[in-house]
């Protein structure tokens, strides 16, 4: 009957009632997502425990070890596997002889931290702009949407380079990088939020809230924001890995965080000429970056399916499932 139709159509917008419990139930059924989640957890742990871990190893990310590199051969690490040894678990960096393990774990902090911060910036700006555009009147919407178009149309890399050059060098670089990535990348999320808001504000309970005499601000907070959580979190989960790559790319263009602070992107950049002479120097950060982005992406997908009932229903939509059904 009509009500069925109505239910289906509205639930595509609303996250399922009493989200959290459902969310976990839906997430738990996805093995890939769980694996990914644990990997991410591990990486975060790695990052947080960086000082501890390198202390255990007895190294730090900045001390030079000229004796551990072959100066005559361009500073390639002495010994096998890039100078892998008891006190240098993953070998040392060519030219400087700095400890790779220490740099990697410290690098994790920067890379993950920057990406996370950038994502937060994107989400916040995106939410504000999106809701304002979606809930505001035609003119507000016009103006904001146009502005969003402009931002989306700006080439991320170039603007980052410029912005990073403008800000005085005193400003803490990781924060700056995060902010810049964030400020340039919120466009897409704003568009999504706007679209969702437009749908949401058609919903009767929003109208009802207006009839109750609440202010727009309060309505945005109480009626819209919670409903937006699902799509936003979903999208943010997919943005996060992208931002990690963005940090790497910026370093690659010479606009990342500054030495001696290590970041994966930065290590990759200086490493990618050493692919033959000292492969592990390239492969370690590349591998880590790869695993991280992969895990986060898979997790992001998992989160999406767990949050978005349609996606969730997809989990059970059988096309190749005839066989089980026979039984």
């Amino acid at each position, binding site marked *: *009957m*009509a009500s069925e139709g109505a239910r289906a159509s509205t639930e595509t917008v609303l996250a399922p009632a*009493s989200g959290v419990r459902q969310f976990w139930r839906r997430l738990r059924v996805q093995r890939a997502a769980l694996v990914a989640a644990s990997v991410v957890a591990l990486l975060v742990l790695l990052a947080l425990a960086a000082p501890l871990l390198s202390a255990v190893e007895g190294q730090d990310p900045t001390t030079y070890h000229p004796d551990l590199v072959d100066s005559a051969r361009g500073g390639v690490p002495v010994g096998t596997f890039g100078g892998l040894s008891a006190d240098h678990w993953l070998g040392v960096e060519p030219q400087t002889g700095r400890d790779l393990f220490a740099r990697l774990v410290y690098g994790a902090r920067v890379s993950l931290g920057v990406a996370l911060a950038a994502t937060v910036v994107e989400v916040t700006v995106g939410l504000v702009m999106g809701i304002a555009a979606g809930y505001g009147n035609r003119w507000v919407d016009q103006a904001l949407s146009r502005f969003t178009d402009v931002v989306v149309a700006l080439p991320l890399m170039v603007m980052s380079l410029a912005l990073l050059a403008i800000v005085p060098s005193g400003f803490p670089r990781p924060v700056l990088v995060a902010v810049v990535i964030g400020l340039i990348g919120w466009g897409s999320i704003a568009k999504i939020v706007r679209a969702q808001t437009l749908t949401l504000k058609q919903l009767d309970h929003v*109208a009802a809230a207006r*009839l109750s005499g609440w202010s727009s601000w309060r309505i945005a907070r109480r*009626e819209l924001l919670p409903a937006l959580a699902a799509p936003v979190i979903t999208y943010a989960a997919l943005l996060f890995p992208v931002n990690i790559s963005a940090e790497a790319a910026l370093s690659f263009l010479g606009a990342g965080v500054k030495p001696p602070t290590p970041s994966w992107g930065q290590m990759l950049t200086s490493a990618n000429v050493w692919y033959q002479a000292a492969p592990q120097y390239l492969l370690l950060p590349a591998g880590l970056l790869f695993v991280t982005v992969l895990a986060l992406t898979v997790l992001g997908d998992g989160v999406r399916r767990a949050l978005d009932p349609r996606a969730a229903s997809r989990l059970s939509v059988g096309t190749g499932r005839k066989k089980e059904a026979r039984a």
Partner: protein
Amino acid sequence: MSTDGTLVEVTDLSVGYGSVRAVDALSFRLERGAALGLVGESGSGKSTVASALLGLHRGTGAVVQGTVRVAGVDVGAASEAELRRLRGGTAAMVFQDPLSSLDPYYAVGDQIAEVYRVHHKASRRAARARAVQVLDRVGIPDAVRRARARPHEFSGGMRQRALIAMALACEPELLVADEPTTALDVTVQAQILDLLHTLREETGMGLLLVTHDVGVAAESVDDVLVMRNGVEVEHGPVATVLGSPARTYTRRLLKSVPRVDVPRARRPAEAEQGQEPTSAEVVLEAVGVRRVFGRGARAFAAVDDVSLQVRRGEALGIVGESGSGKTTLGRMLVGLLDPSAGQVRREGVAVRGVRPDVQMVFQDPVSSLNPRRSVGESVADPLRARGERDPAVRERVLALLERVGLEPAHYDRYPHEFSGGQRQRIGIARALAADPRVLVCDEPVSALDVTTQAQVVELLDELRRELGLALVFIAHDLAVVRQVSDRLAVMRRGRVVEHGPADEVYESPREAYTRQLLAAVPVLDPGLAALRRAERRELTVTQM
């Protein structure tokens, strides 16, 4: 064991999804060319039975027990190939929502042709020709051209016709129609039912009609099987079951079906109060309101120069088919929309924007409550917005919940824990919390089962009398509206075509359109149904 006389034979059919038993040990048989109606409220399992006939449960993980034989084929045991032959070939199905049931991306003709070619070795041209043929058969004008159109270019009725055409394409022996008219306007519904009727007469195919609307069944089948919670309640010839129901549930069901031909029961109490609506002062008024949507070329007036008055304590009914602009009007009355032209006046003063003293009850019991907030909080909204504080607020809310027939304990529950009817009561409670003088109800019961409908309508009527509320009752269902309104306004294409005391309009409609509407309402007496069918033909003719 299928004798050639038998088309469908269902024995001890049980369908379960996980722990839920949708259908429990149901058995029935359908002779060739006969028509059986499966009637029941939502959750009675009637649609599940329909799908079971085509083995649609395969691959969904539902557990199917018992045997289903369609034209000799054991659906449960049939091979994929057999099943495909059965589907569409022997037995064709028509679904509820005609829009979503067709692929939006392909021309209707092509979709029918595709189905046709699944079952017949035919060239594309031949298949197309066939498509045109059946489209023409189901009364799509200019079928050749229309065959190339896509579903969204069709009206709801035409889409349903197209679906029926698809069903006809392979000349099935059985047509399974699952709520084929629920999503349609009453006049269109009548047309579709008539179409089904004539098709049966001509092709002699069997019909299994699944519907929640007893009236629809009465119009179009020989036997009915009343279901409830997956089990059979009563089964027999339509006349007997509807005429002299044996079971209490059937009786209750029939009783709660609103009758368009029975005037509203006026409480004696009211007569004593003797308040003549005409005398009471006007609380809400629409003066030449007009609302235009879209701009430039695409602009159209959803509501066009409508003037209405609502007096204290009276109930104004507004009926109209989809697109008549009744909802837009309703939203302008409460101030959710501002009119493009004209005025909305409250106590004679022109106002814009929302005011607590005019509240609304919404159609969709799902989206009208914030799923993330306890119902108590939702109801409390108007109070808190007024700046009242606990415990006063809580007490008031508890009282309101009780008044609309819910338990105080429900305060802290969440919407999804309630049935459609209960949610609607919550919605009403929230509206009352603002102490409104006018309550605008937009299709308040159209999403509910008949039994629940009756209760909610009853509640609204009580509240009106008790609190001296003025009630604006917007609905597409003429029968329901008649049960509540003192006065009636009939809307069509954004205008009020007829307006007057309810009983007058119902007994002696002046407008042809109104007459057409009334004629389209299904009646419970199968005998009468036949007469009306004839009557309708004339009307539609005169219409054109």
